[in-house]
């Protein structure tokens, strides 16, 4: 239950998780109303029957290659590494994917599932709009009707992505309940799904939610780590010494980490949004400053008050602004396999500017959190050590936010 159990991390079969009921140790599971169970059962049965078939794998790989543009390259950020003066930093360039982030790996996979399940309509929740855009994109590609739920506050903040989704033929539905942000969009999407389950597939954008979502999203995103493992060995003749990725719900991080979990020499760092600083309480770092609870169908670390109400989070980056986290991350934290750390808005902004100016690569603000921590880490490591950062998305979508911080109106 709530007590983290202690096992020797060396004896854990990481690849065996989750169990057949979707649990990662005490986390995960399926905490939903009975009204949703049949839909989850149908999805799980479809996924388990398709996932290991050659036909499904080939279809997925073909779309990843020709539509998304995989494999994404690994780039040695030499100038930036030199400036930092420590370990060599490599970037897994998920920002070069079609639609500009890792999100599309998952939406392609889920849209293929929807196609095989005969669902003509897809719905999605979105915070910053990246997952919404990736969902609208694949819906256009597969000729599916698409509705995207987005907190009314986020609709205002992310007007560019809202219009992008509309151009792609999706309908964006502003959610005015609760705190009007990502968590409320997810509530609303679940409500729509339970009402329209006969013709609707719910594309969840991260490794959270009820089983089987944390597993299937991880499986689709693990292409990142599988490629990266091969590429690092080819380019540097060995595995990296450390992996770094940002964690909101945690899909890009789990996608990178999972294929390396059994490589004991590879240290892993998941970087949460520290907002104004973890000590201020104004952040989105449940693994650093939350505790286990139940939200959105799974048991995981959460930001909550003493009454068990979910509290508002703060991050400069809308994509990390979520009070929960994928249950596998909660488990990896308790196991001590991954170190979960936080960096502040300001530190992320510094990293955003550094990478943009020194390497000519403009990262997403979410990704900038990972970069900020990688820079700290590199400083204390020898020059012959390597750090691989998941460059999960590009920063074009954040230009208005950055301009606003600089006091510039575009």
């Amino acid at each position, binding site marked *: 239950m*709530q007590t983290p159990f202690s096992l020797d991390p060396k004896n854990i079969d990481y690849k065996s998780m989750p169990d057949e009921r979707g649990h990662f140790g005490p986390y995960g599971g399926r905490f939903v109303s*009975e*009204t949703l169970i049949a839909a989850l059962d149908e999805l799980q049965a479809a996924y388990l029957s398709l996932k290991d078939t050659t036909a499904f794998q080939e279809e997925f790989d073909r779309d990843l290659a020709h539509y998304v543009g995989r494999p994404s390259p690994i780039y040695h950020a030499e100038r930036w590494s030199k400036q930092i003066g420590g370990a060599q930093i490599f970037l897994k360039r998920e920002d070069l994917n079609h639609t500009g982030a890792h999100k599309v790996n998952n939406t392609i996979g889920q849209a293929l599932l929807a196609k095989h399940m005969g669902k003509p309509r897809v719905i999605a929740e979105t915070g910053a709009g990246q997952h919404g855009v990736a969902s609208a994109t694949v819906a256009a590609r597969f000729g599916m009707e698409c509705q995207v739920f987005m907190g*009314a506050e986020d609709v205002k903040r992310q007007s560019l992505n809202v219009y992008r989704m509309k151009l792609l033929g999706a309908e964006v539905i502003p959610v005015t309940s609760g705190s009007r942000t990502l968590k409320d969009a997810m509530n609303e999407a679940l409500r729509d799904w339970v009402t329209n*389950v006969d013709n609707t597939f719910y594309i969840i954008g991260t490794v959270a939610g009820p089983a089987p979502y944390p597993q299937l999203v991880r499986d689709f995103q693990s292409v990142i780590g599988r490629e990266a493992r091969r590429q690092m060995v080819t380019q540097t003749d060995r595995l990296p010494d450390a992996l770094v990725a940002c964690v909101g719900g945690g899909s890009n991080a789990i996608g990178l980490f999972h294929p390396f979990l059994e490589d004991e020499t590879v240290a892993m760092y998941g970087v949460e949004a520290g907002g104004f600083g973890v000590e201020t309480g104004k952040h989105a770092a449940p693994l650093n400053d939350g505790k286990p609870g139940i939200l*959105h169908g799974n048991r995981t670390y*959460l930001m909550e008050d003493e*009454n*068990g109400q979910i509290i508002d989070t703060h991050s400069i980056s809308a994509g990390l602004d979520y009070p929960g986290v994928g249950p596998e991350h909660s488990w990896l934290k308790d196991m001590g396999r991954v170190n979960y750390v936080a960096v502040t808005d300001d530190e992320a902004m510094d990293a955003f500017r550094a990478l943009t100016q020194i390497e000519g690569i403009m990262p997403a603000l979410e990704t900038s959190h990972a970069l900020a921590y990688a820079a700290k880490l590199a400083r204390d490591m020898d020059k012959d050590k390597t750090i691989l950062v998941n460059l999960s998305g590009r920063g074009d979508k954040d230009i208005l936010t950055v301009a606003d911080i600089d006091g510039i109106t575009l």
Partner: protein
Amino acid sequence: MSRIAACLEACKASGRKAVIPYIVAGDPWSDITVPAVHILVEAGADIIELGVPFSDPMAEGPVIQLGHERALAHDVGMGNVLAMVAEFRQQDPNTPVVLMGYANPVEVMGYETFAKAATAAGVDGVLTVDMPPEEAGDMNAVFREYQLDTIFLIAPTTTEARTKAICAMATGYIYYVSLKGVTGAGHIDTDEVKRKVNGIKASTSLPVCVGFGIKDGDSAAAIGQCADGVVVGSVLVNGMGESVGMATRDDNADASVDPLAGKDRAALAEVVNARILSIVSEIAEGANR
């Protein structure tokens, strides 16, 4: 025998359908709830389902979500809800009270602490919406120890095998959700409900009460034909919201300003009470027509 079992047995013995109103504790403000629950009993309620406010009530439709939001605007938490039940119990030792809510407010207290406090306050049963039988084992074991009934939902999409498993874990009564979707949605297909309720009755001797979509005397009468009890939620929560002019969400509202500030709460409470008395009286009449 638990207060719930005794109540439902008495209903059955007298050939009556149980009337089970649902309101959210602390909606639209804290000290209206206890008097309102007494009114519900006066109007014909046999069992009270008291909603525990939660920030993310994902199985609720817009009407009950608003009820949760109105209560949370006054920071009503589990401690307050239990205090309300205790206060109600001082006047009414007989009417069973079921807490209906989400898992996290119980998780944060711990099962044991919650169960102890709930029993002490006079709570009779718990329906945790997002705690399906696969996950409910630990919680159920603790609640059983404290003689709290554990009520479970069965949905139109629940398979026969699951129905059996749920019935095996449930005590008190089975809550059959008559519609696909969230609370407050659509129209009920009475024949379909009858078929399903009979199916459930084949798996259990527990009473089967039906909720979702019971709006008035006629729908209560239709459901009363096959169910042991009718649950009325959304229409009641909406009635309370309308009575205080808060039945829609004001998207431009300043969250820091209490929408009830400066209003005569005693006068509003009278309007609320008259409205819920009328709604539940009509349902009670319909269910036993």
